[in-house]
């Protein structure tokens, strides 16, 4: 079976065509056709805004379920550092990792440590990079897709380092395969994820031939089980290796925390990310060395598959950072050796994937633009979205492209009816 092209799916039976998702979509990928929401696969970047807002639970995430654990002879959990922020103040990362072990993962790896390792590599990368600046973080799969689609000029600004969850997955699969003496493919490496977009980066990776992960289980899916397991942990071994530097990756500006450079900027939330990318494209931010862009508000703790409200979660992260310190526990020499040895090298190039113009012939595209503006003048400009497009301008564009009719506008149709009555 072909893997789903996106990490979210619309359930037609539940959709009432209210258009809440359509109006929230930052890339205008959704239309309401015959009373049901439809997604244009080409335009969707998997940001999850629609998933977050749907009042009818008609959008579901295409993530891995806990039951899939059984498919593997040996399962490894690779929890996003966000997981540490989801529990009561006195619950510490090591306990959470032990709880993961208790609910059925044979090996549990502290991904935050790998984040910390990547911070060290990033420092070296920025120190030796010749530009173009700002370098833009590539950890959020939605940001990478957004840039490839709407800012193809900025693809060359993306950091070219393998992201922590991928490099960690590769390493732990090898380790487990050796110690368990089973072939690597019998091992399931599963990311515990705060957002559905991680799934699309597993099914259709960018910068990789094939993902090193076998799936992503939502934090919200296993949260109840973890709470149960936390009640009586029998084992007592040290699984947490990370300091505050790795744990901080859960929040906006976390990737910057461990970096020496002063000229760094952290931006989160889809609209602010779009705004800052416009600034970068206009040459406004050339003095910034590193730009961390995360699509969810406040960073990964704002992911739609988390359980704790993000403000509480941020408080917890800050507490943990204080507790475990801002001094990396990763040996700088080791990080440098790995960096120079190609451990962080991307296996495939990230390619621009711009949206197609209105017409492949520029002359015709200009004509269509003029036509669009002409149609737009006749529309009421109320952006009511009752036509099935998010706003008047998009309807005008759809009409020009032959994908909608001007009669879809309820105001124009009403006027027409009044005239003929």
């Amino acid at each position: 079976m072909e893997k789903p092209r996106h990490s979210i799916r619309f359930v037609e039976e539940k959709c009432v065509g209210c258009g809440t998702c359509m109006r929230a979509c930052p890339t205008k990928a959704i239309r309401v056709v015959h009373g049901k929401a439809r997604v244009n696969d080409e335009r969707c970047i998997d940001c999850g805004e629609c998933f977050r807002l749907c009042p009818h639970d008609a959008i579901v995430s295409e993530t891995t379920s806990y039951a899939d654990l059984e498919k593997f002879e040996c399962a490894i959990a690779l929890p996003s550092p966000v997981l540490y922020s989801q529990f009561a103040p006195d619950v510490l990362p090591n306990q959470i990792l032990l709880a993961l072990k208790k609910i059925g993962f044979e090996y549990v790896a502290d991904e935050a440590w790998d984040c910390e390792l990547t911070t060290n590599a990033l420092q070296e990368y920025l120190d030796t990079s010749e530009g173009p600046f700002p370098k833009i973080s590539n950890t959020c799969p939605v940001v990478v897709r957004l840039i490839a689609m709407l800012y193809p000029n900025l693809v060359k600004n993306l950091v070219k380092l393998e992201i922590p969850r991928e490099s960690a997955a590769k390493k732990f699969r090898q380790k487990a395969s050796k110690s368990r003496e089973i072939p690597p493919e019998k091992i399931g490496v599963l990311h515990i994820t705060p957002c559905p977009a991680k799934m699309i980066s597993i099914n259709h990776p960018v910068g990789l031939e094939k993902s090193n992960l076998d799936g992503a289980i939502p934090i919200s899916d296993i949260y109840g089980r973890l709470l149960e397991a936390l009640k009586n942990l029998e084992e007592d071994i040290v699984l947490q290796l990370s300091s505050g530097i790795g744990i901080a990756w859960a929040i906006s500006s976390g990737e910057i925390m461990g970096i020496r450079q002063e000229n760094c900027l952290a931006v989160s939330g889809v609209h602010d990310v779009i705004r800052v990318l416009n600034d970068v494209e206009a040459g406004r931010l050339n003095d910034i060395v590193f730009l961390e862009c995360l699509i969810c508000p406040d960073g990964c703790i704002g992911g739609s598959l988390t359980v704790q409200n993000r403000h509480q979660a941020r408080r917890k992260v800050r507490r943990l950072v204080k507790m475990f310190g801002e001094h990396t526990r990763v040996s700088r020499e080791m990080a440098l050796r790995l960096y120079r040895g190609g451990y962080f090298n991307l296996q495939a190039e990230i390619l621009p994937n711009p949206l197609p113009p209105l017409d492949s012939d520029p002359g015709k595209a200009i004509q269509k633009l003029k036509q669009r503006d002409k149609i737009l003048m006749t529309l009421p400009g109320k952006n009511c979205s009752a036509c099935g497009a998010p706003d008047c301008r998009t309807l005008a564009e759809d009409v020009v492209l032959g994908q909608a009719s001007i009669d879809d506008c309820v105001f124009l149709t009403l006027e027409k009816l009044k005239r003929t009555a």
Partner: protein
Amino acid sequence: MAADNTFIQEYSIKGWDFTRAGEASCEIKNILKQIGVSQDVIRRVAIASYEAEMNVVMYARQGTMRCEIDTTKIKITIEDEGPGIADIDQAMQEGFSTATPEMREMGFGAGMGLPNIKRNSDGCEVTSVVGKGTKVAMSFNL
């Protein structure tokens, strides 16, 4: 330019309106993407038109940005009602700026505005009358 094959759009820019500053050049950039102009030209237009727009926002009372696109050329003309430039040659030099400390605090006024426009466009003409206003006409070949 034959009128019917040319896409024309005009934007008004208000002096000191920093909240909306940059919107016009961003709009132009989006139009170019919809026409399918090459990424390199889009990048250069984005930088040059933004600089010109910001010059109006920072120094002038008001202005207009007119954009004409056909299949061979993009012409962007920015005209403002403002103080004008006494010595254009000087203003074209990198690092020369008359920005106030407040503007510099906001990250503007590095004296790269006009030089940046010149560097990124294929043709750039600046005319000005002191006390009346400035006109910047830039073009990009397609």
